[in-house]
């Protein structure tokens, strides 16, 4: 009985290894500049329900921490404020998602921009960095497990750490039609 529980513990510990795995070179595909998002799919009655896809970037604590670094490096904080509280741009830490809360929708928002001020970063940022950013943005409203979300800030903490945030449950009623990126 004892060795069995030890085995289970060892397996659990080993499962934790992957979340800190660092993939420095994401390969030629993911390194291409992100600029391929399909046009809007127009469909009567809106799109059928799709379960939220979790990208592999949302299972790596390193990728999410990189997203956090890029969030300030690319000055996302200039409009959405440090920690996603919102200022000129909408808050990213609540349940309100004007253009959808799934990783693909956030990817599309970053790559093609949105009306009312969100610039398009397509052609400027590598694909994998957009996915890291999208993963970090989702951690701001507690959508990521606390083992993945960043736990400490380099700045003075003005809000709860991403890890300690309660999961918000975004409603579907405000979403715009979903736009699919080409590659996953």
């Amino acid at each position: 009985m004892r060795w069995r529980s030890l085995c289970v513990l060892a397996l659990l510990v080993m499962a934790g290894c992957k979340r800190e795995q660092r993939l420095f070179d994401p390969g030629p595909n993911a390194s291409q500049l992100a600029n391929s998002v399909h046009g809007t799919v127009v469909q009567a009655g809106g799109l059928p329900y799709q379960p939220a896809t979790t990208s592999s970037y949302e299972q790596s604590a390193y990728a999410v921490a990189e997203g956090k670094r890029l969030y300030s490096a690319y000055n996302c904080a200039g409009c959405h404020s440090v920690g996603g509280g919102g200022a000129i741009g909408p808050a990213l830490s609540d349940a309100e998602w004007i253009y959808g809360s799934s990783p693909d929708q956030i990817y599309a928002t970053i790559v093609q921009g949105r009306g009312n001020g969100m610039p398009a970063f397509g052609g400027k940022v590598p694909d994998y960095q957009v996915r890291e950013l999208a993963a970090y943005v989702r951690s701001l409203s507690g959508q990521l497990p606390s083992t993945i979300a960043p736990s400490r800030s380099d700045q003075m903490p003005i809000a709860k750490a991403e890890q300690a945030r309660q999961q918000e449950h975004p409603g579907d009623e405000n979403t715009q039609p979903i736009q699919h990126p080409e590659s996953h």
Partner: protein
Amino acid sequence: MNAISMLAAVPGFTGNQSSLNPAGPMAQRIEHTLALIFFVTGAVYVLTMVAMGISVWRNRLAKEEFPSPQQTPAEQDRKTVIAVASAMGISVLLLFVMMLASFATSHAIGKENGRAPFEVDVYGHQWWWEVKYPQPEADKMVVTANEIHIPTGSLVRIHGTSTDVIHSFWAPNIHGKRDLMPGYQTDLIIQADQPGRWRGQCAEFCGPQHAHMSFLVVAEPMDKFHAWMTAQAGTPPPPSTSQTQHGQEVFLSRACIMCHTIRGTVAGSRVGPDLTHVGSRDAIASGTLPNDAQHLAQWITNAQQIKPGVRMPPNPMPQQDLNDLVAYLESLR
């Protein structure tokens, strides 16, 4: 030349990253202290070893085990006490000599504080050095990376800080180490008397590419230093050939513009090194690669193969674009 500096002139240490080849007064004082401590401890070590060797040799025929408790005549006890006490006395004396020499060195170096006519701001980043020369007019400020130019024979104050983790500024031919702390400023007064190019390195482990975080201190005569400052303060002329013009377009329309600055263009981001005069530098990637077209192209295409974990993402692009971009960057002198 005093006795110590003659002793300190150990042959074979001519390197440009060595505290045994000092290029300025501070490094020279540090080297003298180092030489003093080295020769004192070296002499003590040799004498101790010789004494032990003699003792072993003398008693080589003593076969029987020592009785326990050991019985020794009173005369021998007295001799032992004198020998141990005098050895201890000499040790304490020598330790005091080394301590006072160390105090004197620290005092002599610290005395220069507050008298530096030149000021340089050094920012440690993971894993490169940002160097700024503050000027009264903001548009004359010189910003460069991984290369610190200083005039010879003049005190220079380094204002050091870090933007992420603790780094340590260390150019051993010029001075000792100084840690750079995030959110805190540390100062170091340096001086180089010999002109030359001295390599320095981060001396505090700061992440996966700590070993590839070096810089160059370029000490040159005052007139050459001022000529360099004037050239660096200006903006490079607009690209003249069709190749460099296209290279500039590539730079401004791709990912480069997200992180780098080239003054005189719309590129003004402060995440990566300032590339306004990148063509004038000796090395790229913080002293990792020589600055030529081939290595620059490799670095742009996939920096992760050269320095895994570095902040520069891979940038796959058509060969023509890459060639033109490299030609443009090399033209920024």
